[in-house]
């Protein structure tokens, strides 16, 4: 962690936006640590979950983070991300639990989809892992600016025993008093960076000097075009007949299952360049790079109702 300047928080000046968002996230982490028995951070190695881990470390320093990490691994990974994940876990002295979607497919609890996409398959291993480990609070890196259904999500959001989200039964969330009461078998999802925008995330990563997987920065990669996105070659099927592999200068704006996470053409190799690009971008990150959200007008809402993050 880079040492920041110690500045007196003069009463004359409000905290800047990033300081306010950081303090809010730390407050949420501490509330959950104080009120739940077995919280866990959902961690993929992507930028939002890496940010979550960074904030959790800051919330409890100099003590260790009092939760484990859980990665629901589709097996459709970028090697750079897995390497990054393992290094971060080792450096921070964290505990990582990995739920391999492949194990669920191997023993028949899940069936591979015809299109090869494993993103929707993450829900069952996630819910099984929550039950098996008796997790009662699951931190996720979801942000309300990502998508319309997420805009109505609470910071602490109750899920029933089936992991389902019922938008009509959400509890009102008042002041910073979070009501996390739940019955046995229920759990809550917690979104400490609900109020951050994509640009806030990048600016904070820059300010704090947070290291990210290299695929967030421009690099050369063999990719093919599908549904208007650049997808990488991989075990998830592709390129198909008629889809041509070509080398492009790309980077990723989100990291998800390889079958449906597209790269964007970019020459941004530094944080400054990435921030300039995000500022100028005319597409939301999900719209640009996530095939899974394009399926219907209410795609995210439907998946959230089923227990997805």
């Amino acid at each position, binding site marked *: 962690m880079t040492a920041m*300047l110690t500045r007196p*928080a003069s009463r004359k000046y409000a905290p800047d936006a990033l300081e306010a968002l950081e303090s809010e996230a730390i407050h949420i982490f*501490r509330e959950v*640590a104080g009120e739940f028995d077995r919280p866990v951070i959902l961690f993929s190695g992507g930028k939002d979950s890496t940010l979550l881990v960074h904030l959790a470390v800051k919330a409890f320093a*100099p003590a260790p983070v009092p939760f484990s990490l859980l990665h629901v691994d589709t097996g459709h990974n970028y090697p750079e991300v897995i390497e990054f994940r393992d290094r971060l876990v080792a450096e921070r002295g964290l505990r990582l639990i990995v739920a391999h979607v492949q194990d669920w497919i191997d023993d028949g609890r899940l069936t591979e989809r015809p299109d090869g996409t494993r993103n929707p398959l993450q829900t069952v291993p996630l819910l099984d892992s929550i039950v098996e480990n008796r997790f009662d609070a699951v931190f996720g890196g979801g942000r309300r600016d990502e998508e319309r259904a997420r805009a109505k999500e609470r910071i602490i959001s109750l899920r029933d025993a089936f992991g389902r989200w019922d938008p009509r039964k959400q*509890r009102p969330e008042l002041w910073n008093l979070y009501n996390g009461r739940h019955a046995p078998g229920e759990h809550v999802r917690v979104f400490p960076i609900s109020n951050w925008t994509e*640009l806030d995330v990048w600016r904070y990563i820059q300010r704090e000097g947070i290291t990210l997987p290299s695929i967030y920065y421009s690099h050369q990669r063999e990719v093919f075009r599908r549904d208007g996105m650049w997808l990488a070659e991989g075990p998830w099927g592709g390129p198909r007949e008629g889809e041509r592999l070509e080398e492009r200068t790309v980077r990723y704006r989100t990291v998800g299952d390889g079958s449906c996470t597209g790269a964007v053409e970019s020459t941004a190799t530094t944080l400054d360049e990435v921030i300039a690009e995000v500022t100028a971008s005319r597409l939301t990150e999900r719209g640009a790079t996530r095939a899974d959200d394009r399926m219907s007008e209410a795609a995210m*809402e439907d998946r959230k109702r089923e227990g997805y993050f």
Partner: protein
Amino acid sequence: MRAISEMGSEVGSDTDSEPVGSPDGAPRRDLLRFATAGSVDDGKSTLVGRLLYDTKSVLADQIEAVHRASVDRGLSTPDLSLLVDGLRAEREQGITIDVAYRYFGTPRREFVLADTPGHVQYTRNTVTGASTAELAVLLVDARFGVVEQTRRHAAVLALLRVPRLVLAVNKIDLVGFDEAVFSAIAKDFAGLARALGYPEDRVVTIPVSALLGDNVVDASASTPWYSGPTLLEHLESVPVTSPEIDAPLRMPVQYVIRPRTGADARSADASRWKNLHDYRGYAGQVAAGTVRPGQRVLVLPEGLVSTVRAVDTADGELAEAGVGRSVTVLLADDLDVARGSMIVDADAPPRLTDELEVTLCWLSDKPLRPGARLLLKHGTRTTQAIVGALHDRLDTDTLARGRPDHLEINDIGRVSIRTADPLPVDDYADNRTTGAFLLIDPPTGNTLAAGLVGSPLEITEQP
């Protein structure tokens, strides 16, 4: 009881609102949390869509989706309200069900907007949005002016002590941009706001057309008689006001940080704490005032006095931390302090009491009757509570108070409550954190009510 005009100091002022440079030289942008209230017919979704659209906070794929959906619905122009209605049921029914949060920014400020629908469960939604808002934008239709629902919303916003109000007189194009219509509505609203305790300088009225964009982001050529700011100009320049800034220190303890090990090589600042075994820090977010080393503090409800040894963060110790800052406080004495305690200014402590006179916003379908046994969550402490007498119920249409035998959903009433543990409370009018609490239904865990200590809405005259 303090009038809203006396509520606390301002961060920055109108003459001092230039962005202040941060130590790394980048322009300093602060955060304004605000809420909107109004019904669908007032064009609120369109106004919010317009704010997002004109500040270029809506990106190409979202606009494309709106165009597509508008064509599907047989509309000839894009319906900007589709940008903000998120849930399937909302789009199908053309209504907004739940509070939605929106984000946009300008070079001067970042905004978190709690967009609260008006017609269904208006109290629940307005209370939720108002609870964190530093300003609220109320909408009226220029053709109808201040209506019953405007009065209800304004009463709830005043009750929740939202420091500033903006009345957006929408659809000003539909009254031919008529100054006389606008002035009459502005005068009406000024009377209402005054009756609810708002002084003139905390209320601004702006003529807008959300549909056409007049005075939302860009100044309108059709309202030459209006010389005030556009809505966005006002949002960008208004000082952030908080009564808690100059109030005495309040910090609920969330968590006790005890590394319980020797110097930990993994922690960023192992060298600062030669032996982390002795580290015992009280983690919390400053709810009022400031905390600084050397300060004499009282820990409640324990009643222990000590001195602040350090105000720690992961980035190093601070000379001082103000409202909203998450810190870890180390005390000079080894005390038994736990989650649920509150660290306060020793010279100006809150009352410690198990008998509360409160105002409730009842948010549940299950009515409240005297004698109810509930859970009460205040700060970081949850305790049992018994509801005593119901004193009155506020009629938000007439602002008159009646005597009820129960409270129903959307009711606002004053009641007595007894708690199992004494709580350190301030009046909500003085402190929006230590004066606030939730009532929770023990069997279901549902939030039943937003609770405000004291009687924060003092109606000075019948409007």
